[in-house]
């Protein structure tokens, strides 16, 4: 039986079973609501725009932890500063190219590989043609590509399927920090939606608290939570 026939059979089976193939929930309903597909869509390239120390990587990882994508997690680490301690329980591949062209090539290879669930790359400047190739590679591979870029590139043209801007909010405590996530641009929809999230430090399930809840932390050490503090926009 031809591979294409098998692929069609699998898609048909997924439709019949009612599973929404290809969309990975972030685990945060408030964040899902502002995303165009209601989660991370397989085959998408997502850009996270943030300043250093803003918390974009932390938030991105927690959304992936909730969805638990099946497959390899590939971290392309050109700056050799990646410290994926939180990902040790996962099957993780770290790629450390030395030249810029090798970085572009490695990211494309990882995006194109069907066995890679998430391709993760902090990178500053990338030519548009390379971003376009990455977008096509992500579509072909079916995984999720996450690029972490400086906030300054917000003025540049976007080739990614989704562009999110993460801004830290100065209301952190010993056990938590607050960030504001805004959809800068996305395919097929207008951007501009934003939500504020509170990231806690401790291991446990992720849950969302209603908007009326008091977000002040209790005195005891709280469980690991991702709280929706307020919806903006």
């Amino acid at each position: 039986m031809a591979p294409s026939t098998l692929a069609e059979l699998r898609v048909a089976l997924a439709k019949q079973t009612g599973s929404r193939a290809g969309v990975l929930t972030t685990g945060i309903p408030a964040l899902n609501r502002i995303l165009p597909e209601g989660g991370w869509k397989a085959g998408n390239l997502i850009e996270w725009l943030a300043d250093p120390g803003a918390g974009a990587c932390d938030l991105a990882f927690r959304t992936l932890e909730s969805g638990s994508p099946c497959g390899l997690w590939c971290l392309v680490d050109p700056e050799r500063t990646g410290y994926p301690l939180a990902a040790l329980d996962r099957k993780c591949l770290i790629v450390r190219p030395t030249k810029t062209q090798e970085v572009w090539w490695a990211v494309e290879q990882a995006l194109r590989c069907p066995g890679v669930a998430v391709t993760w790359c902090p990178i500053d400047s990338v030519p548009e043609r390379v971003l376009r190739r990455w977008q096509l590679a992500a579509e072909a591979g079916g995984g999720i590509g996450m690029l972490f870029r400086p906030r300054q590139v917000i003025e540049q043209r976007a080739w990614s399927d989704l562009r999110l801007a993460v801004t830290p909010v100065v209301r952190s405590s010993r056990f938590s920090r607050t960030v504001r996530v805004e959809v800068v641009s996305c395919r097929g929809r207008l951007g501009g939606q934003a939500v504020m999230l509170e990231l806690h430090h401790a291991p446990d399930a992720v849950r969302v608290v209603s908007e009326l809840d008091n977000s002040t932390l209790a005195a005891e050490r709280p469980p690991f939570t991702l709280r929706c503090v307020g919806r903006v926009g």
Partner: protein
Amino acid sequence: MPLAEARALLPLRPKTPVRSCWKDADPTADHLALQQIAIDCQRYTPLTGMDEFGRESIFLDITGCAELFGGEQNLLHTVMRDLSRRGFQIRTALTDGIGTAWAMAHHGQSGTILPSGNEQRALEPLPTASLRLSATVIEMLERLAVHTVGELLRLPRTLLTSRFGPELLLRLNQALGVTWESFLPERLSMPLIAQWSADDALTDQRELAFVFRQLLAELLAQLATRRTGLLELHCELRTETETVTVPLQLAEPAHDLRHIAQLFELTCERRQFPGGVFAFRLKALRIGGLHERQGKLLNDAHDRHDQEIRRLVERLSSRLGQQAVLRPVAVADPLPERALQRVPWLADAPADPAKFYVPAVECCISRPWRVLTTPQPVQVMAVVPDGPPRRLTWQGQTWDIHQAWGPERIESGWWRAWDIQRDYYRVETADGSQFWLFRDARRNGWFLHGLFD
């Protein structure tokens, strides 16, 4: 014996601490290791072979070899010394026949050199098990109160076959040297090599790729007959001035011509061949059995993904080098830059990875996503000399610090070559960014070690 039984034999309250460790038995690996020892022993004699009976012995036919080592005694001593140095506990015997040698090595005195004609006298006190008999025959002899070879020899020979079968008499004659016996010598397998040479040099990458494919196809054809695949390939390309070696390593045995050729092309992109290539030589260094998997009509994504991941790793390693394609491994070390090691993906995974060391601190400071390989010195202003930072200057930019949590003291032991004593702070600047700073008590300075991205 079962593991539980073995553990029960350990003393409950030993006078000295008993360290125990265990591994699953692997007869195949044991056999391969013994085979390798037999091949290594070909430095003493060209004829070495495995023991097909107990599968735990090797035979060396030293006919004509003793003089090269200064006599039989010296040869025996050399063999024992060399193998003992490799960590093996061995028993040896040097006799005229295989059966006698087996009996003396297993049940006699180790290191015995038996003169010719003394086989019977040497075998008489040994147990009947020294004749390499089956358990059934030994049990029958035990029931008849025949415990030693001497007692067995006193039995009428004509009755042995009818009573115990042909095996007993055969083994007895082999041990006494009456019946000639041989072993199958171990041979080094023929190297798998394909080569090409020409008077005109190849300068174009496509020409190199074409020749490589031709040679690889020849090599894979040899492997196909054995149902094995390539695991490691050694390519030598001779130019005018030098011989360039291009190693190719795979994650698992493969016989895909197109994939391996692609790996070669990716590897050659990083290399120069001044003057062109005059000769090509491919040698298969390691091969392995091909594992055929039953395909499934649906839901076989897991198997397909595993194969795709292996191929991705091989492609990345070929172009970027094995040291650039890594897997993270936790190390029980308090120093952040040492707590996470990155080992090559194609290298063997650590057999016993250390449990991840997390400092049990009340303030529950998590580790940042970015940790600088070398901490960078920063300018910090603090209200009190040993207090938390209040202003940070890094790469020409200044931040006011809104909050600081810490300190978390991390220090190395005095037995380390370097003495480290650091007080770590997680700081939040006025715009909400969070950094990981530490004050080095030894050097009395502040450093940026990570960013909470």
